[in-house]
C-alpha cells in the first residue's frame, strides 16, 4: 500500500512549521493515524510538515502549579514520565493502555488529541482532568478547554493552519484518586468504551467527581449527571452503582461490528463503576 505523492518538510523552527501550515500543509507527528489513512488513500495531503523534527516540542514539565506536555511527547514519554507518574498518574495509566509498544513509541499526545478518534483513550482522561489545549497559528495563540475542544468524531476546535502545541493538566492533591478503565478492541487496542474517573474525598464524603467517557459516542464527554450524583455521597457501593448507572444518560451511543449501542451503554456503566471504585481506593 503506497500513499499518494506528497512533499515533505522537516521544519527547523515552529515558525517555519506554522508558516507552511498557513499555506495549506498538514502536520504529521507520530504518523500512527495519518500514515494508515494515507496508505488507504483516505487522506492525501499534498505537503507534510514533520512536527517531530522540532526537538523542543516533546517536553513534560511542571510550571505555575500545572503540568505542561508538549505536543510531540510520545505515548511512551508520557507513560514513562516520573513527574507525571507522581503528579498526574491518570495520564501515565491512560498512555500505557494505548495500542501496543510500537504505537506508543511513535504516537504523540498532540496527534491523538488533534485526530480525535472517537475510540481514542487520551480524550477520556483529558476530559476528566479538565485539560486545556494551547492552539497556535501563524499569527495568534489561544487556549481551549477540553469540553469545547472535542466537537465531534475526528472534529476538534482546531482551525486550519493551527497546531495543538501543548496540553496543560492540573496537579491534584493527595485526597484525589484517579483511574482509567477500558474495554479494548482486541485487534487494535482502541477503546470500545473507556472511562476515566477523578474523585476527591473530604471528611469521608465525595467533594468532587469528574468522569470522562470515550468510545461510547462520537466524542469524548464528561458524564455530568454521574458527577452530580456523586457529590456529597459517602461512596458506598450503592452510591457508586447509582452514579455509574447515569453515565450514558442522554448519549446517542455508537454501534458497530465490535459492539452494539446497548452493549456499549452496558460497558460504560460497568467501567464507570470500576473506575470509580479503583479511583476511590487510591486516595491516600
Amino acid at each position, binding site marked *: 500500500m503506497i500513499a499518494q505523492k506528497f512533499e515533505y518538510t522537516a521544519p527547523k523552527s515552529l515558525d517555519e512549521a506554522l508558516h507552511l501550515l498557513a499555506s495549506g500543509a498538514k502536520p504529521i507527528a507520530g*504518523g*500512527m493515524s495519518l500514515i494508515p489513512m*494515507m496508505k488507504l488513500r483516505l487522506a492525501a495531503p499534498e505537503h507534510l510538515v514533520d512536527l517531530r523534527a522540532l526537538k523542543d516540542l516533546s517536553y513534560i514539565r511542571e510550571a505555575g502549579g500545572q503540568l505542561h506536555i508538549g505536543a510531540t511527547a510520545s505515548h511512551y514519554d508520557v507513560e*514513562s514520565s516520573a513527574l507525571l507518574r507522581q503528579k498526574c498518574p491518570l495520564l501515565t495509566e491512560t498512555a500505557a493502555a494505548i495500542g*501496543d*509498544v510500537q504505537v506508543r513509541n511513535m504516537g504523540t499526545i498532540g496527534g491523538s488529541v488533534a485526530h480525535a478518534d472517537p475510540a481514542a483513550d487520551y480524550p477520556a482522561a483529558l476530559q476528566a482532568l479538565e485539560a486545556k489545549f494551547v492552539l497556535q497559528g501563524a499569527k495568534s495563540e489561544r487556549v481551549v478547554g477540553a469540553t469545547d475542544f472535542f466537537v465531534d468524531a475526528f472534529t476538534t476546535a482546531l482551525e486550519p493552519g493551527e497546531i495543538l502545541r501543548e496540553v496543560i493538566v492540573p496537579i491534584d492533591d493527595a485526597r484525589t484518586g484517579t483511574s482509567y478503565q477500558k474495554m479494548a478492541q482486541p485487534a487494535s487496542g482502541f477503546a470500545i468504551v473507556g472511562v476515566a474517573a477523578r474523585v476527591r474525598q473530604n471528611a469521608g464524603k465525595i467533594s468532587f467527581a469528574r468522569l470522562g467517557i470515550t468510545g461510547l459516542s462520537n466524542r469524548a464527554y464528561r458524564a455530568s449527571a454521574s458527577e452530580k450524583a456523586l457529590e456529597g455521597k459517602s461512596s458506598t457501593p450503592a452510591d457508586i452503582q447509582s452514579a455509574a448507572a447515569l453515565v450514558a444518560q442522554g448519549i446517542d451511543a455508537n454501534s458497530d461490528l465490535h459492539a452494539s449501542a446497548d452493549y456499549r451503554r452496558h460497558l460504560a456503566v460497568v467501567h464507570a463503576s470500576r473506575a470509580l471504585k479503583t479511583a476511590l481506593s487510591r486516595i491516600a
Partner: protein
Amino acid sequence: MDITLTINGKSYSQDVEPRLLLIHFVRDVAGLTGTHMGCETSLCGACTVELNGKAIKSCTMFAVQAKGADIVTVEGLASDGKLDPMQEAFWNEHGLQCGFCTPGMIMASKQILDRNPAPTEDEIRHGLEGNVCRCTGYQHIVNAVKAAAAGAGK
C-alpha cells in the same frame, strides 16, 4: 529527497520519494530482507525494527521521517557468527514455527528487556501486544523472553 540512514552500523544514502515506507528502504534499498512485511496495516508487528533504540513498525513510517536515524534490524543482532541472547533463547525454547513473525517478535522482545530486565509473564504479554503470531500460540515465545531475561540475569 536525499536521505542517509544508518542500518546495523552501515550508512545508506539514497534519493527517495517521500512516500517510500521505511520497510521498503530497509528491504529494497538496503537489501535487508530479514524484516518482514506482514499485514501492511500497522497491526502485526512483523516489520518491527529498532529506531534510535525504540521498537517501531517500519510499515508505518516514511523513510524520510527516519532521516539521520540509527536503525537496527534482525540482521544486526548476531555478531561474529554468534547469536544475540534473544535469538538464542527463541531457538532453545522453540519460540517459532514458520518463522514469519520471528524477526519482529525478537525486536519487540528486546525492547521489553531493554526497559525491564526482569519482566513478569503479564508484562511480557503486554510488551508483545503489537506482534501477531499465527503458529505458536505465543506460549513458547513468552518462554523464550523469560529464558533470555533469566540468562541475562545470571
